[in-house]
């Protein structure tokens, strides 16, 4: 396992930066540069690099899609949100249509934000490509098929030229897929969701999104701590504040930054990556949540430090 690459990091619905948001970033960057001089483009680049991503960039707006580079020559993805479209474009630019590839896709669940990118996933239209879609839901294939064709989409699923296969996985078993040991765990979410644990080359990545952790059930908490145990990276649904998850948004199927920190600390994980960002949050809000999460990690730390990051579209985490 070499790297994790994020193609879509928003929950519920893709979002786009507005003109007003871009303008406020430009204003903030210029304000920060007031009175400074830049002797070269390299100086200018360094200045930009030191700015918070909320000023110099954006967390992005695609719905969930994460690529895990395993070191094998086949692709491994988690979820088919709108982020799979730019992933597919990059794969096509790299390989072209004449060089068939294999794509292994692990589905957390089949809610719309996690499947909506597939109709626009170009490799699915290319003969010779192999696409294996794995998941724990019995209705996995049905969910992906029915978003194709009129009146929802002009292209029928049957028109996709790639070799597409759906593979049911059972929680509790360990599978060897694309050179990686994979297991899955049932999570609390409307209609169920599944978290995945990927291990290869001594590295472990957890993909756990759309999962509500109530923590009052100690057996359930223990099971998740075991699932996260000693992970190098935990990609974690931190969509809401803790107060929201236990009040007005209880049973909405999502979790918080605070619970993410606590589970990772109990599990001895090395890095927590906040994921499935709330679409109504602007970049400044996500940066503030990240800073607060790092502070909470300091407050609650009893062992080794836990690195805390916030996923953004285009982010790469080297393992």
């Amino acid at each position, binding site marked *: 396992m070499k790297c994790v690459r994020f193609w879509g990091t928003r929950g519920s619905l893709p979002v786009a930066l507005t003109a007003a948001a871009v303008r406020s970033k430009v204003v903030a960057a210029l304000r920060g540069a007031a009175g400074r001089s830049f002797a070269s483009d390299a100086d200018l680049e360094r200045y930009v690099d030191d700015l918070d991503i909320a000023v110099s960039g954006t967390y992005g707006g695609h719905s969930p899609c994460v690529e895990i580079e395993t070191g094998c020559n086949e692709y491994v993805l988690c979820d088919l949100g709108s982020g799979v479209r730019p992933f597919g474009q990059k794969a096509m630019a790299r390989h072209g249509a004449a060089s068939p590839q294999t794509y292994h896709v692990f589905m957390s669940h089949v809610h719309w934000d996690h499947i909506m990118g597939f109709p626009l996933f170009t490799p699915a239209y290319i003969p010779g490509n192999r696409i294996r879609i794995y998941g724990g839901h019995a209705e996995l294939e049905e969910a992906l098929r029915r978003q194709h064709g009129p009146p929802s989409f002009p292209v029928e699923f049957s028109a996709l030229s790639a070799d597409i296969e759906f593979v049911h996985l059972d929680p509790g078993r360990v599978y060897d897929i694309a050179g990686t040991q994979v297991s899955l765990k049932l999570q609390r979410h409307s209609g169920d969701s599944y978290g995945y644990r990927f291990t290869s080359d001594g590295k472990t990545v957890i993909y756990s999104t759309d999962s509500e952790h109530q923590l009052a059930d100690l057996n359930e908490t223990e099971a998740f701590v075991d699932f996260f145990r000693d992970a190098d990276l935990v990609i974690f649904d931190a969509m809401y504040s803790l107060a929201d998850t236990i009040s007005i948004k209880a049973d909405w199927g999502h979790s918080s930054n605070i619970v993410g920190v606590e589970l990772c600390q109990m599990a001895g994980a090395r890095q927590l990556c906040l994921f499935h960002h709330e679409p109504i949050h602007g970049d400044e809000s996500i940066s503030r949540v990240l800073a607060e999460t790092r502070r909470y990690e300091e*407050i609650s730390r009893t062992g080794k430090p836990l690195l805390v990051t916030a996923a953004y579209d285009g982010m790469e985490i080297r393992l």
Partner: protein
Amino acid sequence: MPLPAIGLRLAFRFGEYNRSSQREKLQLAAGTKVEFSSRQLADVAVVAPVGQIDHSNAQKLQQALTPMLDQAAAARTPVVLDFTGVEYISSMGLRVLMVAAKQMRGAGVRIAVAALQPVVQEIFDIARFKHVMEVFPSVRSALHDLSAPALSAYDAAQ
């Protein structure tokens, strides 16, 4: 595999009002003694937990609070949680507070948290807890908002 213990201490003990408090000891779990202080100031019950409230002991806090909250709900009298002695609170502890707040809200009774230490205040801020629970900077300010007779009783005891 058992959960690692993070800050095992949760001892309910006498707070600043111990001279007039009624000491209560509850046997809440096998071999676990929980002490806490509570004090009735006119129509307001003031409860003072002390220590670190975390995954290992939050349920004990809930068990200790339940009879007091039931009593306050039945009497329709407010409750103040004096957090002067609380050094840390985890998500489980905050959940216990939320459950208490829901119970009191359902009974039409106010419950407030007062006198947060700076670190606990930070945790409340990070959790966005001020949106779901009344928080006051001191016990006195909470009583000032909740009950004039309780405030008088508090001032008289100083």
